């Protein structure tokens, strides 16, 4: 309420004082950019890039409670701004990824892997707090708020899925000149020492349209105009790999003060053939014979036998074929003073074998390998690609390392993890940080960790020979925090040095835990997802510092745990209790009773009633018989009865 009142107040003050005063230093701006790059085997990498800057920080104000809030967000989405400010997040990174990046075919990840997440949802943030507990509670607040904002299960990021302060991440902004000076943080200039980094990941989360829609809603044109109008969930999530990234990084400089800055990126690898087929025939049906591309080099090729070629060389397609619609118009964002503060452009990265035809827009620059277009305000924009040789794509740089992680062993009691890191460089060794955060029900044995090194150069092909000394040699540093049941998972971070042209194999054993019945998800036999490992490549700068130049993720793993019978709780409780009661009963039966000779039992220990009963019975039956009568007979009967009782006991 206070927030709203002061916002209205500020607005009113601005209107009265004249707009130019409020636009003190720099105005909020919006840039959008689309990169299109054909990849081998008729794939297309489309990188959507949206950048939003808020107004400069001269407009921050303090609320009554000392809370900082932004008076003028400008184009910056207020929902995100308020969340990061109420939770004191200095930097926020959010990733929604699905699919697998084929590094051997496609090379470098877009943006050097900086904006690509692991399978599922990944989030990390630097949060200010006087203590760990305060920062941590703000972190849970943050993920819960984001969960609502993006319709993702981020609220399931609890302590067991949170990794505090991994060294694999570094802030993008310069935290020391922090833009938010919190009165309660003690000093006017909050230093990075009271910032806490938290990282959480949900590998099981399925990224879908429900996440894309709120993602696009943050943009000024809400996906209705500009390049974001191409982002149709049906096409984006039908891709081989896609990653949505949101990075909130405040930017500060001495001239303009601080501005909120958010980058949103959507990177998609589309299978062109598949998308085209979907466009032409939404219901899959076999192509007619004349459209089949046959491999005529096969010996059995004939009129009636065809070995289909998957990737035709001659292709021709338009953007609207792939995405289902054309770019509507430019996303035009007018500020109150009528100045347009946005820019929209589309660039292609092609080889001369490709031919481009555009519809609408203006050519900004054009070379043989690159062409950039700027969008017009009202025109629709479309781009047609055609080539006679689709294998000709612009060269992909080889990534500095490849990584592959897999599970070893069989059965559901224990297993192992094997990670292979491959350095393809002929000359340089590469130093990396490898982060692995495992769920608590995976119990690793760190003493079983061994490293094996095998050279891939043909001259000295050696088999991987794991050894302890080698483990010491390649591992520069180990950061390890063991798991704690139901509280936190294992955190393992390794600094490694991989020699040129060699494969580093890391392996260790782990045990699989059993969970309580209620802790199993509904489809327990599907398995449990293990978050992807994160590999960060370090490069030594000229000034001697290490900079983080490339990041990549392994795929997530599916861990199958032993399961109980889910229909059994009552049966188990009853059966176990019965066995326990049986033991208890028999033991106490023996302990509390004593032994007697049966003859003594008859003579002395027959209960009164038992003594009297036959007498009464006899009397009632034959009232004439005297008391002193059949004494012998009577005792025989009692004996018989006692025997029967004893037999009953024994059985």
């Amino acid at each position, binding site marked *: 309420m206070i927030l709203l009142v002061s916002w209205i107040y500020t607005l009113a003050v601005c209107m009265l004082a004249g707009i130019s005063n409020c636009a003190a230093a720099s105005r909020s701006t919006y840039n959008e950019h689309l990169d299109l790059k054909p990849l081998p085997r008729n794939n297309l990498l489309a990188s959507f890039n949206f950048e939003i800057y808020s107004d400069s920080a001269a407009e921050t104000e303090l609320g009554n409670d000392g809370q900082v809030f932004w008076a003028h967000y400008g184009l910056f989405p207020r929902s995100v701004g308020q969340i990061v400010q109420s939770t004191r997040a200095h930097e926020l990174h959010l990733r929604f990824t699905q699919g697998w990046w084929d590094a051997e075919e496609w090379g470098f990840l877009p943006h050097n892997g900086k904006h690509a997440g692991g399978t599922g949802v990944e989030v990390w943030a630097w949060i200010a707090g006087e203590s760990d507990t305060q920062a941590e509670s703000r972190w849970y607040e943050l993920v819960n708020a984001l969960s609502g904002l993006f319709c993702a299960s981020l609220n399931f990021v609890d302590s067991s899925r949170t990794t505090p302060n991994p060294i694999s991440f570094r802030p993008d902004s310069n935290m020391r000149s922090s833009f938010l000076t919190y009165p309660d943080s003690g000093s006017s200039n909050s230093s990075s020492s009271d910032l806490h980094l938290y990282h959480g990941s949900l590998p099981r989360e399925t990224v879908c349209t429900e996440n894309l829609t709120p993602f696009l809603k943050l943009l000024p044109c809400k996906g209705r105009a500009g390049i974001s109008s191409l982002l149709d969930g049906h096409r984006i999530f039908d891709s081989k790999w896609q990653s949505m990234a949101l990075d909130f990084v405040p930017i500060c400089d001495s001239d303009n003060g601080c501005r909120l800055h958010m980058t949103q990126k959507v990177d998609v690898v589309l299978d062109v053939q598949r998308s085209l087929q979907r466009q032409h025939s939404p219901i899959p049906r076999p192509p007619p014979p004349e459209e089949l591309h046959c491999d005529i080099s096969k010996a059995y090729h004939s009129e009636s036998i065809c070995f289909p070629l998957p990737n035709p060389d001659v292709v021709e397609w338009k953007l609207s074929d792939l995405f289902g619609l054309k770019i509507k118009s430019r996303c035009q964002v007018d500020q109150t003073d009528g100045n347009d503060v946005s820019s929209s452009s589309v660039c292609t990265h092609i080889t001369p074998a490709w031919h481009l035809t555009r519809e609408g827009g203006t050519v900004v620059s054009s070379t043989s390998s690159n062409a950039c277009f700027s969008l017009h305000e009202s025109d629709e924009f479309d781009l047609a690609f055609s080539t006679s040789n689709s294998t000709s794509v612009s060269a992909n740089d080889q990534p500095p390392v490849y990584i592959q992680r897999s599970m070893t062993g069989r059965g559901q009691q224990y297993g192992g993890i094997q990670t292979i890191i491959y350095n393809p460089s002929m000359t340089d060794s590469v130093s990396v940080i490898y982060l692995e955060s495992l769920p608590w029900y995976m119990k690793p044995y760190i003493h079983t960790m061994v490293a094996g090194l095998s050279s891939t150069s043909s001259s000295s092909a050696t088999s991987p020979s794991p050894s302890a000394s080698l483990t010491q040699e390649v591992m520069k540093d180990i950061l390890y925090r*063991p798991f704690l049941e139901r509280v936190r998972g294992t955190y393992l971070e390794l600094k490694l040095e991989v020699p040129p042209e060699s494969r580093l194999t890391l392996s260790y054993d782990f045990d699989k835990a059993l969970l309580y019945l209620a802790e199993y998800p509904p489809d327990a036999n599907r398995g449990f997802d293990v978050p992807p490992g994160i590999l960060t490549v370090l490069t030594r700068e000229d000034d001697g510092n290490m900079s983080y130049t490339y990041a990549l993720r392994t795929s997530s793993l599916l861990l199958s745990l032993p*399961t109980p019978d889910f229909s*059994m709780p009552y049966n188990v409780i009853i059966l176990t209790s019965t066995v326990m009661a049986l033991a208890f009963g028999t033991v106490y039966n023996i302990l509390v009773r004593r032994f007697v000779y049966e003859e003594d039992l008859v003579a002395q220990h027959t209960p009164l009633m038992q003594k009297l009963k036959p007498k009464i019975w006899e009397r009632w039956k034959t009232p004439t018989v005297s008391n002193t009568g059949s004494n012998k007979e009577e005792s025989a009967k009692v004996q018989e009865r006692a025997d029967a009782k004893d037999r009953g006991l024994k059985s």
Partner: protein
Amino acid sequence: MDSRTWAVILAAAVLRLSLSWIFPSLNSILGQHVAVTTSMTSFKQLKEGLHLYEIGISPYHGGVYHQAPIFLLLFKLLGKFGSTAPNSLVVNGVYIFTDSLTSYFLCAISKSPSLAKTDQLASWVIASIYLFNPLVIATNVARSTAVLSNAAMIGSIAYACYNRNVLSVMFLVLASHANIYMVYLVPPFLLLWTSKRGSSMASGAKYLLLYITASAGLASIGYFMTGSVQYLSATYGFLLFFEDLTPNMGLWWYFFMEMFDFFRPLFTYIFQLYSFIYVLPITFRLHNYPLIAITCIVGITTLSKSYPEVGDLGVYISLLSLFRFIFPNVRYTLVAVLVLLHSLVLAPSFYHLWIYLGSGNANFFYAITLVYTIGLTIILTETLRATLLFEFTGGKDPSKAVAQI
């Protein structure tokens, strides 16, 4: 100790050594088998704890290591003499020596003044019942640390039988430090410590005080080693509150796995109480036979403790072999043996069906643990009954019919 006993001990040592050297993978196969080791005794977890301790991380900081700190000290010391791999010479030596020592203690108990006047099996028979018991061999080859704590417990009995009470107290302190359930043995041990003629309540109190002081002293080692009392919750708390649901031969794991969250604390208390509730009644009732009382309580904990393993049954059977004089009174021996054999053969197979083949489910193994418990119950109740009957008849063959009332 005659030459025959020494031959048995030697043969058992050679057997253990050859098992571990001819089949090097046997150590890890048995060492990871749920029936043979638990997280309270696993050698692999001990190695992990030792590794963490050596690289400067408190092993009790996480959920990896739950065994007593004294094992860390012991194996760190052993590491100075050579590798502590499960089939290394040092570890083999320690485990074989410990088992031989246990059998030596058992023979010594059978020759002790209180037992020697009764009918006894020959020493070499008693030694072989322990040393050639497949359960004991498996536990030894699996490098379960229960081998060490059981040796301390049996050593404690042996010293008490020879009136070396202070040593006996110390051994019991070691045993109960490693396995907290051995605290239940204190009441019958008090009977044993004060059984000497002329002993009074005061001497019992003296030994109890000594036991408590020494236990506290040993517990403080953990504090000085790790710098915090965190290890108490990681070892004893872990055992008392039953946090690890890994299957074992006991009643706990499946019950608590299936139990509703709300009732879990209640049933944890009930189960712990269940294992204790027998201790005092058995001690009181068998006060004339403290050794049998100890044996019965060992049997009870085998059945009711939170992380039982089959090695406990091996120790229990070996202790029973000391009391030949009650054998004539034992009934249902065949039934008990068959039930236990049935469960011990089927337990690994059903576990395999569940975990590896997927053609069975958890109920298979669970059912076998129930059968195992019933087998133990038969032995336990028959031991108790036979002892009380022996007490009643005075060892004479009862010609007259006897009843229990």
